């Protein structure tokens, strides 16, 4: 591309921009200055934009994937390999499908794989109940190991109640 830039006409065009409008394609050849003015990064070295960081990160990390390499998401049919290529998942369920590798990738990128912070209103009740269930189960095990059978019976009932309540909420889709 040694033609002059189609915006300024001063510098040689280095970047091709294609816009598709009403099914018609139109290409523009722009110089680095003008392309940058349009917000299009003029080189592969896009500074440290978050997107560039992610792409650079992924090109090293995802190749280690073993667990998910043969899996496809039952919901959207995307494979883990297509995620490795594009850096994007197909649907929210992909996180569940590729859970092992996603946990590893998220931990390596974010430095954590457990969410902290806001929880959707609808999920809040279910999550609180799960946390209580988790605590009651632990208390039940503790009571059994210490042969406190009356306590154990109480915790067992509590666990049953919580499981039923969570099941009910899941059925209602909240």
């Amino acid at each position, binding site marked *: 591309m040694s033609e002059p830039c189609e*915006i*300024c006409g*001063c510098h040689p065009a280095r970047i091709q921009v*294609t*816009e598709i*409008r009403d099914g018609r394609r*139109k290409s523009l050849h722009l110089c*680095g*200055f*003008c*392309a*940058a*003015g*349009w*917000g*299009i*990064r*003029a*080189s592969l*070295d*896009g*500074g*440290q*934009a*978050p997107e*560039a*960081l*992610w792409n650079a*990160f992924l090109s090293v990390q995802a190749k280690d994937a073993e667990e998910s390499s043969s899996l496809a998401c039952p919901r*959207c049919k*995307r494979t883990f390999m297509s995620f490795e290529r*594009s*850096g*994007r*998942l*197909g*649907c*929210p*369920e992909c*996180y569940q499908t590729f859970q092992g590798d*996603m*946990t590893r990738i*998220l931990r390596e*990128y*974010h*430095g*954590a*794989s*457990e*969410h*902290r*912070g*806001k*929880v*959707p*209103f*609808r999920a809040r009740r279910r999550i609180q109940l*799960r946390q209580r269930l988790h605590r009651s189960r632990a208390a039940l095990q503790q009571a059994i190991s210490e042969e406190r059978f009356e306590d154990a019976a109480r915790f067992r009932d509590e666990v049953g109640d919580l499981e039923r309540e969570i099941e009910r909420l899941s059925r209602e*889709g*909240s």
Partner: protein
Amino acid sequence: MSLPPPLAADLDRWMLEVPADSGVSSSRLRLARNLAEPFPGLMDSEEKKELRGRLIEALAGLTSFRGASFLNLEELALHERAYLMERGILGEESLLSPEGRGLVLDEKGWCSVLVGGEDHLRIQCMRPGLDLETCYTSADSLEAEMEEVFDFAFSESFGYLTACPSNAGTGLRASVLLQLPALAMGEDFPRVLRGMGALGLAVRGAFGEGGGAPGGFIQLSNARCLGVAEQDLVEGLHEAARKLLSFEEKARDRALREAQSLLDDQVARARGQLEYAQIMGASEAIALLGTLRMGHLAGLADRPGLEALQKALTLVRPGHLQMLEGLSLIHI
């Protein structure tokens, strides 16, 4: 379809709400949210339009969007999208691939929801100057209202689920646009930026090509957003921005002490070129205006005034220029 008149006429007013001597032009924060269905990236054009229709209809019923504009991006002219991108309302993807994307924009253009981009919904709020706190409060209350009509995809361990795992967790990306011309001239600049990286923050030149930062304009944002609560992400970025501003002041004082004649020369050259050049690209103009602005803050120049410089820094960009002239320089 074209931009609503208030927004189209509001070319530089928003920029003038920034205190003229502030080193921070604007603060921005977005929350990425999805529904429990395939992400837009998997959809063809028709499916995207169907999704957009459905989501926009739900959003139109919300109190927060009374009086808002509902735009189909492919129906806007390229220069209108460029203008919205320069204002930080749209990203590069929406400039170049607008098909099937929708934008809900409140009257002043401070809060918006992008529909059918990489994620189903992206809530975004902006403020002039350094004010991430207000950005978060606004985005958070908008999201609370949206929860009444949408069931967001969420996992207890991974948080809000997004098309790109780099956005999973809080789905929050906050950013500030800073001007650090004196710091950018110094040898320490790359080291300072690497330091930001170590804090989980990403830095890039705001208007430059490649890694350049003409005028010392940089955009600082959080690169990580899982495992840290929203408030902590916001506070972390706020602190980092304040730190960079204090580094900038020190760098300016040092340059004045140690190399005033060099600084004088640069400011005079910038003014000369701005005054006499006949043809100039946006990046070059921004770099020169940035230098002149620094000269102003350092007491080396007094004309044009800071407000005029601020205004010029906004208006020299291609989308703004075309909006100002009411014509599209690129015909597709």
